[in-house]
């Protein structure tokens, strides 16, 4: 483990992805950059939101910037980890919020991390300046295939690392699922396009309308590999999973593709955004449980459908969609029915869909992907009528466009090794193309990690490292009363005025005052409170003022494998009390203890984890 004690004369903010510096000033502070697994372990244990974020966004830092009304800085802090803050601020699946300490039992509701991300994007000054730290040109040439979130994120990082990157995209516009899968009432295109452009401004060469594959007029992968020092496959998983109907052979043609008024949700949305005019009947059924299914349903409502019903195999509790997304859908009059599996499609004389036969399900065990299984009950079939059926039960990757043989894993996705390299030297893969359909933020996070992997491979050494920056904080930055501020609600469009168009955004975004209130709620978990046991006189003044049982008399502590601390062993017998210690997991950073300590033996440090150029 290397621990460098140094005083840094600070040059530019870009190099240091933390919130402790202000524009133009040279700040001199005693700082410790640590790669000590115990310090990284502390962060992983104590900053649940950042660790939950696949892109490791420095969340407490950017929320803190909002309280200081430095939206540009806040936006940049986001951008350091994720090149599309304004976009993710709208459609992110928010793995962070479910982990937020403020949402833990007894603490109330999680901080609206995602909405605040969007606020920073909305309120950064019009003349906002983007900060990038650039390596000198390396002369290496890289091809990235697929301009989706993973591809764009990787391309951006590779270009900052000094490589010259060419980005190939099949569609006319970059963005992948962002541009073609997600409806505009959830993600306005102007926001998306600006951020995509910024991501590629550093000389990423974008070639749209170019399809990589084997057919005529298509670029061959083997060819690209010859032209470039490295190739990254980020083609996502853009193929809809076929509907498994009872008694259907695997090789038999998919009926869903033959029937009129039956369509795969993914194709439905992609066509829509390619500009193909779409129509739906009065009664629309959507089969599926993901964001795509909900988007299809909400689009259908806007296209004039009167009754839209989403059919789930399991129940609302177990579908991977934001609860308020579900709530909005319901407010738009969409009905959700659980515990039913479609077993057959009912057609009329003209071969059009007439309805669906379902089987009643009961819940089964847990599947290995962490989702709940549903088991149809024999003889429980029943029918329901509809005019249009949209099937959105999943997406998958395709490999048939490759003219290079790559090893696949048992799920049929390409297998990658350390650093993201496939079985073929110099060919890497990232994002949904590797993992199958996941979330946007996961794709971006993966894209970045693979980019670093590629760079290391190309340059022969690691040039970007995960570090923890530790520096003293003068005083607590919160008040106990902040903890009683209720979670702010996202103002939304009146239901009445939502229908009839596909573009008017439903979520209006926070107003400033509301946002400041919300930002204040953040516990700033990256603050670490430590007691200097040698100076402690065991007077318990800190325990007296603590708002919860966050300071404990201890005789031991559980050490986890990764070196971080687990449960503290509490004792009440005076002759066993080895130390008074702050349980940072219980601590809500109110600072009360710091204020009262008679021997001033409590210190606060800011602990920020990020990728640092080295």
């Amino acid at each position: 483990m290397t621990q460098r004690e140094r005083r840094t004369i600070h040059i530019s903010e870009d190099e240091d992805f933390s919130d402790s510096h202000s524009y133009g000033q040279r700040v001199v502070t005693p700082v410790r950059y640590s790669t000590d697994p115990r310090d990284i372990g502390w962060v992983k244990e104590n900053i649940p939101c950042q660790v939950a974020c696949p892109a490791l966004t420095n969340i407490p830092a950017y929320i803190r910037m909002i309280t200081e009304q430095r939206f540009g800085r806040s936006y940049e802090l986001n951008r350091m980890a994720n090149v599309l803050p304004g976009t993710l601020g709208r459609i992110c699946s928010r793995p962070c919020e479910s982990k937020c300490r403020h949402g833990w039992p007894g603490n109330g509701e999680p901080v609206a991390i995602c909405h605040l991300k969007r606020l920073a994007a909305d309120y950064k000054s019009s003349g906002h300046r983007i900060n990038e730290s650039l390596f000198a040109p390396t002369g290496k040439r890289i091809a990235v295939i697929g301009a989706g979130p993973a591809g764009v994120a990787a391309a951006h990082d590779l270009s900052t690392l000094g490589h010259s990157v060419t980005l190939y995209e099949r569609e006319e516009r970059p963005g992948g699922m962002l541009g073609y899968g997600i409806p505009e009432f959830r993600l306005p295109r102007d926001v998306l396009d600006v951020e995509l452009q910024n991501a590629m401004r550093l000389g990423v060469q974008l070639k749209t309308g170019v399809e990589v594959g084997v057919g005529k007029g298509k670029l061959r992968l083997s060819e690209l590999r010859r032209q470039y020092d490295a190739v990254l496959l980020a083609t996502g998983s853009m193929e809809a999973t076929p509907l498994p109907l009872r008694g259907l052979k695997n090789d038999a043609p998919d009926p869903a593709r033959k029937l009129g008024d039956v369509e795969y949700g993914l194709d439905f949305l992609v066509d829509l955004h390619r500009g193909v005019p779409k129509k739906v009947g009065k009664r629309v059924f959507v089969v599926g449980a993901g964001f795509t299914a909900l988007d299809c349903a909400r689009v259908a409502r806007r296209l004039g459908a009167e009754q839209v019903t989403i059919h789930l195999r399991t129940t609302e509790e177990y579908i991977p969609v934001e609860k308020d997304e579900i709530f909005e859908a319901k407010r738009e009059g969409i009905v959700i029915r659980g515990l039913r599996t479609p077993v057959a499609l009912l057609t009329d004389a003209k071969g059009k869909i007439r309805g669906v036969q379902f089987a009643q399900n009961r819940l089964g065990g847990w599947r290995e992907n962490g989702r709940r299984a549903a088991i149809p009950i024999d003889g429980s079939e029943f029918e329901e009528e509809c005019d249009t059926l949209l099937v959105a039960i999943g997406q998958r990757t395709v490999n048939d466009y490759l003219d290079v043989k790559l090893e696949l894993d048992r799920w049929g996705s390409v297998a990658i090794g350390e650093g993201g390299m496939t079985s073929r030297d110099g060919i890497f893969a990232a994002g949904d193309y590797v993992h199958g359909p996941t979330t946007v933020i996961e794709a971006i996070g993966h894209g970045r990690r693979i980019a670093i992997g590629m760079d290391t491979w190309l340059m022969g050494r690691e040039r970007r490292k995960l570090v923890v920056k530790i520096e003293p904080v003068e005083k607590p930055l919160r008040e106990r009363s902040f903890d009683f501020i209720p979670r702010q609600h996202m103002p939304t469009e009146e239901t009445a005025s939502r229908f009839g168009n596909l573009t008017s955004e439903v979520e209006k975004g926070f107003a400033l005052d509301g946002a400041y209130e919300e930002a204040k709620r953040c516990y700033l978990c990256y603050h670490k409170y430590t007691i200097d046991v040698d100076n402690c006189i065991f007077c318990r003044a800190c325990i007296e003022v603590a708002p919860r049982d966050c300071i404990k008399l201890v005789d031991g502590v559980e050490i986890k494998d990764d070196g971080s601390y687990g449960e503290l062993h509490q004792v009440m017998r005076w002759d066993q009390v080895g130390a008074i210690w702050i349980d940072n997991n219980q601590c809500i950073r109110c600072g009360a203890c710091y204020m009262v300590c008679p021997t001033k033996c409590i210190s606060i440090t800011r602990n920020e984890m990020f990728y640092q150029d080295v």
Partner: protein
Amino acid sequence: MAKPEHYVIIGNGVAGGEAAYHLRQRDQASRITMVTVGRLLSINRYELPKLFTEPNLDWRDFLLNPPEYYADQEISVRRNTWVTNVEPTKRQLVLRHRETLSYDKLLIASGGGRHIPEILTQYRDLMMKFGTYEEARSVCNALPKGGHMVMLGGDMIGLDLARALVKGGFRVTVIGKDFLFWPHQLDPDEKESFAQVLRDMGVGVITDYGAASIAADDRGPAVRRIVLASGETLDADVLLSFCGLMPSLAFLAGAGVDLERGVLVDPHLQSTDKNIWAAGDVCQIWSPEEKQYRFYYGWGNVKRMGQIAAFNMTGGDESISTFQDERLVVTGSGEIDSPYWHYGGDSGG
């Protein structure tokens, strides 16, 4: 000697009270704890409409059993207590005030709260409640003599109140596009004919439109103005939502017990956790005949569920079989009558 079983019952409604009584009969040595968010011992919710005809009643007149009953039966009733979490692996409940409560067998009888259609949720605060004695009493105080009450939906709980109100000389209008006569299953024609009977009983019924929006109007917050989809408006002194029941089981989220709209239980009322049962409006019972999970409502059904749950929790093996008739009928005197309105006074006291 073995440690006595600890039975915990969440909810002190008809199902819970009934279960507690039978648990005590079947297991004298056991420890029985009822947990309820209410401040009161079990009251007879079905009798609350009486408040409008006999204003001088106080809550003690609605008690199903006097305090002494619980003392004699050694049933402890933890009122004003919220369950925030159920931890089946530890067999304990976490209460909102951060105390834990361990159980050997758990019965979930938390009943149902009023359901407000999502499309109207933004007006939630403008609607009064009628679930508890306190709520009923405040409705009573809010409604002036001969005043006008508007009901959204008009399920059977609401219509029961409507009957009483009309008798009491109040005006009632039901906006019943979607939930009229819930939970009775009626086809459109039936529905219309029963609606007519209602009108003859003196209850105003609107079946063609639902409410589009609601606003407090300048005559003061107590007066609500309802705007129908048709555009026409009507003013109410009190506005209530009677759009069926929404099982109250927020505390079960993530407990690992299977839920859909309610707690999914087999015909023995046992949930997917072997130590957890459910009874009353909260549970969705698998019906082998109909091959689906369904709710059963009404005093008779709920009471029976309480009995069966208690029976099975104490080692019995009885499954839900005969249920009370659920058809809606018109009596000789030309009034609507529903089995859901029939209740006996005793809950095993």
